[in-house]
């Protein structure tokens, strides 16, 4: 059985973000990087399944991006993935979700995975589209935002988190793709012996040009901090005057009394 888990490296959310020179994405200077949180749940679930199924299963981790993403790849290897694919692309951040998905799908088509795990969304772009679009391009069954997962001989039972705290249960057959949500599991810490072993695991590098055939369907035209709101109004004077002033404003500008 072949499993793929897709991960993205994202900036640490406690970093200070600034728009880049073109004003269409954030600037990468002074950022610390880590594995996308939702992808950690994906890796953990994939590794758990890999451990359950044993040696006949091979777990590949894939990431698209510049050289720095190798660090996230190595973390996934140290968590228990068997081998890795680094799709080298220094301009990954400028690609839209459709293009990213098509790169993954092009690779996955070659390999014929039975199961693909991805995070529900990335913490930086937050489109929540990549996993679904990969499934679409491969013609795989797909379910999203899962918080529970079981696998039995090609049959998948996944628990989904829905709005308002509701849960749904989905059954489907491999080949399939699922996207993972907070609450699915507690990602393990890489162990030191596994970090040492990860050094010896294969990381094959594929230039993105080899896999990219699609153009972008959407472009980010601007990236900026929210415009500063105008300063508040300070009312001054006698209390009864203040009250009537305030009531006037509430009537005029808000829906409070409607």
């Amino acid at each position, binding site marked *: 059985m072949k499993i793929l888990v897709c991960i993205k490296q994202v900036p640490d959310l*406690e970093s200070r973000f600034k728009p880049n020179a073109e004003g269409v994405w954030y600037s990468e*200077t*002074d950022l610390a990087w880590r594995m996308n949180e939702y992808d950690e749940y994906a890796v953990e679930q994939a590794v758990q399944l890999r451990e359950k199924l044993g040696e006949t299963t091979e777990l590949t981790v894939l990431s698209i991006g510049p050289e720095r993403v190798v*660090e996230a790849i*190595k*973390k996934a290897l*140290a968590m228990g993935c068997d081998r890795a694919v680094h799709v080298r692309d220094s301009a990954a951040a400028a690609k839209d979700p459709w293009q990213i998905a098509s790169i993954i799908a092009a690779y996955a088509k070659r390999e014929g995975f039975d199961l693909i795990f991805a995070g529900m969304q990335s913490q930086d772009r937050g489109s929540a589209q990549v996993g679904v679009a990969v499934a679409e391009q491969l013609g795989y069954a797909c379910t999203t935002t899962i918080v529970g997962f079981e696998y039995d001989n090609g049959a998948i039972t996944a628990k989904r988190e829905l709005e308002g705290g509701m849960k749904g249960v989905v059954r489907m057959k491999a080949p399939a793709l699922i996207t993972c949500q907070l609450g699915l599991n507690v990602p393990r*810490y*890489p*162990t*030191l*012996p596994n*970090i*040492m072993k*990860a*050094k010896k695991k294969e990381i094959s590098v594929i230039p993105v040009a080899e896999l990219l055939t699609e153009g972008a369907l959407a472009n980010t035209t601007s990236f900026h901090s929210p415009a500063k709101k105008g300063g508040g109004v300070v009312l001054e004077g006698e209390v009864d005057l203040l009250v009537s002033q305030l009531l006037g404003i509430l009537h005029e500008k808000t829906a409070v009394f409607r």
Partner: protein
Amino acid sequence: MSISFISRRDIDFLLHELLDVEQLTVHPCYAEHSKDTFKAILDVAEQIAREKFQPHNAEGDRNEPVVVDGRVRLIPEVKEALQAFAEAGFFSASHSAQLGGIQLPTVLNNAVLSFFSAANIATASYAQLTMANSHLLAAHASAEQQRLYLEPMMSGRFFGTMAMTEPQAGSSISDLVTTAEPTPQGHYLIRGNKIFISGGEHEMAENIVHLVLARIKGAPAGVKGISLFIVPRYRVNQDGSVGEENDVALSGLIHKMGWRGTTSTMLNFGENGRCHGYLIGEPNQGLSYMFHMMNEARINIGQFATCIGYAGYLYSLDYARNRPQGRLPSGKDPLSKQVMIIEHADIRRMLLMQKAYVEGALALILYASLLVDRQKIGGAQETRKAGLLLDILTPIVKAWPSKFCFEANSQAVQILGGYGYTREYPVEQLFRDNRLSQIHEGTNGIQGIDLLGRKISMENGAAFKLLMEEIRATIGETAGDASLRAWSQELDQAVQQVQETTERLLESREPAGADLFLANASLYLEMLGHVVIAWIWLRQAQAAARQCETASGANRDFYLGKLQACSFFFNWELPKVPHQAKILGSLEPTCYEMQDSWF
């Protein structure tokens, strides 16, 4: 946004830009490692420290260990944290591959441990004691002892302690009276009382391996008659499973100012004559084996002190950036907005002082740790050199951070003003926690005596001479650099003063007598410590100045901060040396001559 307790950026700077630890990987012993594995290991340490250690630091302080139904009870988070530490493989990291470790260099291991110490010193202590214990067993225990006691400590199944102190034998270990009686079966029967034993009792591990100093019946008095024993809480069966109790009784818990999450115990060994101890190595050599552990432990204490200071520094820095209060002397308008207190020069003085102390101390700790690696893997000459430097630096590594990083914690409290004095803010706990550092593992007074009484003159002053040469080498390297020249000259003058003072002291040793010669030893340690830290700062400045020209953004700020902290140390701290030298060189006798009845 969570406030970090130690700066990863600084640790990376020290490891790579100051100490170039990657160089170690060319040696076969560390060939399996690379900059990447170092980074990945530090990442895990940082993450576990942040997620598992730091969150219960205050909780552990508020809930001291208590005895319930004869068992010590701790908050459960302590065990969970140590379990994560064990599962990640940190207990065994620096052991040889042959024993099942990953041969992590000591300098990396201590960088790793810095995260845990800064996050939660009390919980981290259990791990660090166990590791120090296991390193002693790896160096001196028999293969069979290693199988039974070391292996389980490497996986975190057993924890370890060091049990030296007795009520009448604290600083003066040679006065210990715990006895060991040989038996025909080969083991010894241990009898005696130990006090202040950290981690001496708890339910977090299957077993506790005490390393106990005791006297074999008939052994000579003093340090020459002390042997070292493995004394498990539960006896261990041949198959490695845990067997019956070994007659080690908890006679009480000690209630402390800080470090409250670590059990401090009074232990009775052999109340019922059934306490088995297993001799390590040769009889009467116990203290030399224990010194193996203590030298490591002394670097650890310096590291603890530094990290607690570091956590206070970063907390007070964050607070100073966010607390509006008052206006600058130049801002007269009472209706203008209050400034953040970091705008006040006096607050910046206190922040800089902390920065200079804690970052200087951390650099020293990691430098000393690198010496441990060099001593291990170097050729004959390098091994000797590293060994001598370690000999002379160890008392400084223990005592300087424990005094000055504690002072840093006091400054952190000051920055928070009244809030810093309350239990609502972590600086109050950090201040209490760090007060211990000057006391345990040989008080700072004892370290001063060790430095001046033994280390300075050892091997005809070889260690001292070598240290001075190393410092002079940096002075030489920086003398031609316009941005560093002034500091280089100032350090040169300080080194000369220290050297002259030391010579004068040594000359007067005979005529003045040992008591007066050693009377001001603590001050001597402080003086030499200041010169060593100034040296370490100059080396940091050297590395920062190199990078500063090309760096931009936050990186450039980082390097400018290093240079400014170096400037602080040279302008505010190093000038203390001439004053100290004057007191020392004249064998200033006020304290020595003071009479008991005059108080």
